[in-house]
């Protein structure tokens, strides 16, 4: 087991973002984190990335309590770009080399090239799809144990979305754990091992895709709908 979230709650002022959430992340598995806007997905992602603290409960990374030191083993692709538009791509290479010991520069250069992106350009010149693929190239070129992606498909056309999913699934470290927060479960159901579903800060579903298809005999989207109804 890679990470364990134990009875975690998080509030922002009066708003409860997460309420008593418990879950385990296994090594090597690909997780979908689903839920409506405001359900708590980004909050949970930030807690897993160790960039946000919990109010109640605790989080274990391997056998110890998760701390900022574990960020060297966690690669986090946030829902908003980390870089401002005027940053040059070459600068990002230097930044990543400086901050991350595990950054594979050759691999990143290869990925950027394969995606048809010109290294000698600024971020502002890239299309939305290429920008995402560029930033993904950097994230995936880190040798992490846990990769977190918060809505990587947002605003992308269907082809770009598919290319992004294929990149995530094939370019990161083998045996790493992947968590993707997304609305687009129906489109990418077949890729996921396990589905996590948040509703109003509570974890309503934590289920294996194989079990949903094999035992419940329904598509994952339909299964989530029935669980939603059961939870009133």
């Amino acid at each position: 087991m890679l990470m364990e979230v134990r009875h975690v709650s998080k509030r922002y002022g009066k708003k409860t973002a997460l309420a008593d959430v418990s879950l385990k992340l296994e090594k090597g598995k690909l997780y979908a984190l689903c839920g409506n806007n405001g359900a708590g997905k980004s909050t949970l992602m930030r807690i897993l990335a160790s960039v946000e603290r919990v109010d109640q409960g605790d989080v274990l990374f391997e056998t110890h309590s998760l701390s900022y030191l574990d960020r060297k083993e966690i690669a986090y692709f946030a829902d908003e770009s980390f870089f401002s538009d005027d940053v040059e791509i070459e600068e990002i290479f230097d930044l990543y080399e400086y901050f991350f010991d595990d950054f594979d520069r050759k691999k990143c250069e290869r990925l950027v090239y394969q995606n048809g992106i010109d290294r000698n350009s600024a971020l502002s010149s890239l299309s939305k799809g290429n920008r995402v693929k560029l930033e993904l190239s950097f994230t995936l070129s880190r040798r992490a144990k846990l990769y977190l992606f918060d809505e990587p498909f947002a605003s992308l056309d269907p082809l770009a979305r598919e290319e992004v999913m294929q990149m995530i699934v094939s370019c990161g470290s083998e045996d790493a754990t992947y968590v993707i927060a997304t609305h687009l479960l129906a489109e990418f159901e077949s890729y996921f091992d396990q589905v996590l579903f948040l509703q109003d800060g509570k974890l309503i579903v934590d289920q294996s895709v194989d079990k949903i298809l094999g035992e419940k005999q329904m598509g994952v989207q339909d299964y989530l709908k029935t669980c939603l109804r059961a939870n009133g």
Partner: protein
Amino acid sequence: MQYQNNEPIYLQIIHDFKSKIVSGAYPPGSKVLPVRECAIAYAVNPNTMQKALSILEQEGLVYTKRTAGRFISEDAGRIARLKEEMVSVYVKRLVSEMRSFGISDEVILTSVREELKRNVDGSTSCK
């Protein structure tokens, strides 16, 4: 590849491989793509693909050549057995479904014979 909602995905991949081996779309001795590429072709993650390939290997339909990669079996006998297995699965399904509609065995048999007599262009021969 379109997946159904009634079976784990790795089982559906295995079935697809078996169909393609029997139909010749995956010819005997042909090379199987590396796991990551196969996974992309089947729209699954590499774990799922590996699971399916391992089972196909256990069943003797796929084998690994040390440094060269994975290949479809060249064992004609094994492939013939696979064909029989698939025939058996489809026939079982047909018979159980028809019986569940209350159709008698005689009618099942005559219906199958009639269907076999149909020419490729859809016309019926009276022989």
